C-alpha cells in the first residue's frame, strides 16, 4: 500500500508543479517570500561564517516572527539550491516547491488512511480531497495551510503506528512528527488534547497514554527549525502565542452581512464548506461525518476511525466557538475536510461494491469538482459549488467574492500591453512583496510602478471586496470616468476591475 501511496503523493506534487504557473502570488505568499529571502541570506551566512550566523538569528529571523520557521526555511533552502546556486528554477517555483511536497505528503497519508479500508478507498481518499478548486488552489501556495493539513494527517498516521507498536522507533517518529507539525503552524497546539482524549477512549488506554510523553521530543524540532528561538526563546514564544491569541478580525462577507467581529455564526465553517465544495462531495462528507458520529455514539469506532473523527472535529472546533477569526475561506480548517476523506472514500466503496458501480459513483462525486477546477482555476479563492449556485449564485447570496489578491494575474497581460513606460498602477490589495515577485517572474513589466493610492496612479486594478467598495467611487472621482477599461469577470461576476485615466492607452 505504501507504493500506491507514494505514487499518489508524487502524482499530486507533479500536478501542483504543472499547474502552478498561472496561480497568482497571494498576499501571504508575498510575506513568506520576503521571509524566505531573509532566511536564505542567513543560510548563506551560516555556510560562510557559522558562529556569526548563530549570533545574528534575530537580524534575519525576526521578520514574520508570528509563524514558526520550518516551512519558510524549506522555501529558503529550495530557493538557495534550485535558484541561487543552480539557476535551475525561477524564484517563485523554487519557493513553492516545498509546498508541492507537502501536498504530495497529504495525498500519501490520506491514501494510507483510506487503504486500511480497501485499496480503492486508498485511491479515492486523496482524490476526494483534491477534486475541488478551493483545495486544489491551496496546494500550490508557499503558505502553511496545506502543510499543516498534511501534518494533521501525518501526525495521525504516526500516532496510530506508535500506539500499535511495541518498538520505540515508531514512538520517537511520532514525537518528532508532532514537532514538525508544531514547527509548521500553531494549529498543532490543538493536537495534544485531541490525542489525549483519543488515548483515553481506547481499550488499550495505558499503552496509548504512555506514548504521549514522546511528544516532549517536539520542542527539539521546533527549536532546530526556528533559529529565532535560539536567543531569548521565552520572549519569542510569548510573542508567537500572543499574536494568535489576539489576532485581528478581517472583514468577511457572509450572506449579505460583513462580519467584522465576534460573535460569528456558530455554523459558519460548515456552511462555507457546504457552499464552496461541489455538492456530491458535500453530501458524501456529510454522510461520512454522520456515520462517524453514529459509530462514536454506539461505541463502534475502531481506533483509526475514532482518531479520524477526533482530528476532523479538532480542525473544525475552534471555528465553531464564534470567537476565532474566520477569514480565509476554508483554508484554516482544511484538516476537517481532509480527515473526513478516508471514511468518505470507504463509504463510497461501500455504496458501490462492484468495480463498474464504483467507477460510476466515483465519477458522480469527482466530476463536478474536476469541472470546477477546469472552469475556475487559478482563481481558487473565488470558487463556489452548486449549492451556492456557483460563482453567480454566491454573489447573489452576498458571499465573500475572493481574497488574497491573487486573481490580479488575469489583468497583468492587459497592463503589460497597454501601460505606457513608467506607468503607475494602483494594485489595491496586492502588496508590494507580491508585486515585486510578479516583476521578478516577468509576469509584469519592470517599468510599471507600484502606486500607493489611486490618487498617485494612472491605472487602478481594483479587487472586488465588499469592505473595499469605497475604492471604486474614489477612482471614479479621481479619474473622471465610470467605465472600466478591462477586468476579470468570472461567470459575469466582477473580481478585478481595471480603470485607466482618460487619455491613457487602453482607456475606453
Amino acid at each position, binding site marked *: 500500500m505504501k507504493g500506491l501511496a507514494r505514487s499518489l503523493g508524487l502524482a499530486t506534487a507533479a500536478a501542483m508543479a504543472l499547474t502552478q504557473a498561472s496561480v497568482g502570488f497571494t498576499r501571504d505568499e508575498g510575506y513568506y517570500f520576503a521571509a524566505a529571502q531573509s532566511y536564505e541570506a542567513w543560510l548563506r551566512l551560516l555556510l560562510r561564517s557559522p558562529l556569526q550566523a548563530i549570533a545574528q538569528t534575530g537580524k534575519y529571523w525576526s521578520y514574520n516572527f508570528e509563524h514558526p520557521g520550518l516551512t519558510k526555511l524549506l522555501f529558503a533552502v529550495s530557493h538557495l539550491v534550485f535558484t541561487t546556486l543552480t539557476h535551475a528554477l525561477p524564484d517563485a517555483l523554487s519557493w513553492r516547491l516545498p509546498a508541492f511536497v507537502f501536498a504530495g505528503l497529504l495525498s500519501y497519508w490520506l491514501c494510507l488512511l483510506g487503504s486500511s479500508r480497501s485499496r480503492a478507498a486508498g485511491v479515492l481518499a486523496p482524490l476526494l480531497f483534491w477534486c475541488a478548486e478551493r483545495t486544489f488552489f491551496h496546494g500550490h501556495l508557499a503558505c502553511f495551510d496545506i502543510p499543516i493539513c498534511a501534518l494533521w494527517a501525518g501526525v495521525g498516521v504516526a500516532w496510530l503506528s506508535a500506539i500499535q507498536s511495541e518498538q520505540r522507533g515508531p514512538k520517537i517518529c511520532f514525537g518528532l512528527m508532532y514537532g514538525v507539525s508544531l514547527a509548521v503552524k500553531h494549529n498543532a497546539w490543538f493536537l495534544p488534547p485531541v490525542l489525549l482524549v483519543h488515548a483515553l477512549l481506547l481499550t488499550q488506554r495505558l499503552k496509548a497514554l504512555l506514548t504521549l510523553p514522546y511528544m516532549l521530543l517536539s520542542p527539539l524540532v521546533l527549536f532546530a527549525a526556528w533559529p529565532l528561538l535560539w536567543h531569548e526563546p521565552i520572549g519569542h514564544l510569548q510573542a508567537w502565542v500572543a499574536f494568535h491569541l489576539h489576532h485581528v478580525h478581517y*472583514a468577511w462577507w457572509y450572506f*449579505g*452581512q*460583513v462580519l*467584522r*467581529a465576534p460573535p460569528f455564526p456558530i455554523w459558519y465553517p460548515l456552511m462555507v464548506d457546504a457552499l464552496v465544495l*461541489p*455538492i*456530491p462531495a458535500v*453530501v*458524501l462528507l456529510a*454522510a461520512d461525518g454522520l456515520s462517524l458520529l453514529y459509530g462514536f455514539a454506539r461505541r463502534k469506532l475502531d481506533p483509526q476511525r475514532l482518531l479520524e473523527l477526533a482530528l476532523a472535529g479538532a480542525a473544525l472546533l475552534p471555528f465553531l466557538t464564534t470567537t476565532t477569526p474566520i477569514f480565509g475561506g476554508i483554508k484554516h480548517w482544511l484538516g476537517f475536510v481532509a480527515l473526513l476523506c478516508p471514511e468518505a472514500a470507504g463509504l*463510497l466503496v*461501500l*455504496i*458501490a*461494491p462492484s468495480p463498474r*458501480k464504483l467507477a*460510476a*459513483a466515483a*465519477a*458522480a*462525486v469527482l*466530476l*463536478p469538482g474536476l*469541472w*470546477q477546477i477546469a*472552469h475556475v482555476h487559478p482563481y481558487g479563492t473565488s470558487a463556489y*459549488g*452548486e449549492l451556492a449556485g*456557483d460563482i*453567480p*449564485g454566491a*454573489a*447573489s447570496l452576498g458571499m465573500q467574492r475572493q481574497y488574497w489578491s491573487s486573481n490580479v494575474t488575469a489583468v497583468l497581460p492587459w497592463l503589460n500591453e497597454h501601460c505606457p513606460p513608467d506607468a503607475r498602477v494602483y494594485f489595491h490589495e496586492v502588496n508590494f512583496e507580491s508585486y515585486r515577485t510578479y516583476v521578478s517572474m516577468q509576469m509584469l513589466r519592470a517599468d510599471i510602478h507600484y502606486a500607493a493610492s489611486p490618487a498617485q496612479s494612472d491605472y487602478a486594478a481594483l479587487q472586488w471586496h*465588499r*469592505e473595499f*467598495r*469605497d475604492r*471604486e*467611487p474614489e477612482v*471614479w*472621482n479621481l479619474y473622471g470616468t*465610470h*467605465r*472600466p477599461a*478591462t*477586468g476579470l*469577470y468570472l*461567470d*459575469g*461576476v*466582477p473580481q478585478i*476591475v481595471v480603470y485607466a485615466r482618460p487619455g491613457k492607452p487602453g482607456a*475606453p
Partner: protein
Amino acid sequence: MRRVAFALLLACGAGSLLFDLTLSSRLPRESDWAELAGALRSEARPGDLAQLWPVWAEEARLHIDSMPVLAEEDLVHADYLGFKRLWVVSLPHFGNPEKGLQERGATPAAPARRFGALQLQAWDLHAPEISPLTTQDAEHEVDYVARRCAQVRIGSHFVVRGPAGSALHVRAGVIGERAYDAGKPAVTVQVFAEGLRLGTLDIPRTARDGTGWRRLDVPMPAGAAERQFIFTIDSSDALRPFCLTAWTSK
C-alpha cells in the same frame, strides 16, 4: 438501502454536473452586452439611468456608455435623484426586480426585451421635480453603494439658498468602513430654514449593513418660495468622513 444511496449519489452527481455545464447558458455573452448597449445608445435621452439587477452584473459598466449606470441595492427606497426613466438591465435567471420597482410606484414604460440572457425594460419613475441643495459632483460609498453626495466635515455647518418646494429631503451617512467603527458616537444633522428647525437626522454607528444611509423627509412649512437653509453636522467624534445630500421636491 445501498441501492438507494447509490442511485441518490448518481442523481446528485449528474444534477450537479448538469447545473455546472449549463451555467453559461444562463449568463450573457459579449454579443448580448453589445446589442443591449447599442439599444440603449439609440434610445437614451436626458434623465435616463441604467439600473443593474442583480447588482453584481457590473460587467455592464464595460459596455453601457450612453447613460449613468447604478447598482442600487434597495430598489424600493433608492432616490435616483434627478432621473425620470430607469432602464433596468437584469439577468432573469438570477432575480426579478419588478416587485421592488412596483412597490416604489414605478411603472413599465415599455415591454421587456431580451438580448440573450439579458433583459432590458424601461420604467417610468414618476419622480417629482426636485431642486438640489447640495452639490452632486462626486460619489462616495456609504453602506456599500456609491452615493452622489457632498463630503462635509463633521463639526461644520453650511448655508444654502434654494426653492422651498413642498418637502425637504436629506440623506446622510459615514463614508466607507469607518461607519462600522465600534463605540463611535452618532452624527447629528440639523436643518434650519429661516431660523426654524425643520428636522434632525441622527446617524448612529452602523451596526447592521443596509442601515448606514439615513433618511429624513419632512414637509416644508408654509412660507417664502425660496429660503435660506442651514445645515449643521455635529458629533463628539469629528474624524470620520461624512457625506450628505439634500434637496427639496415640488
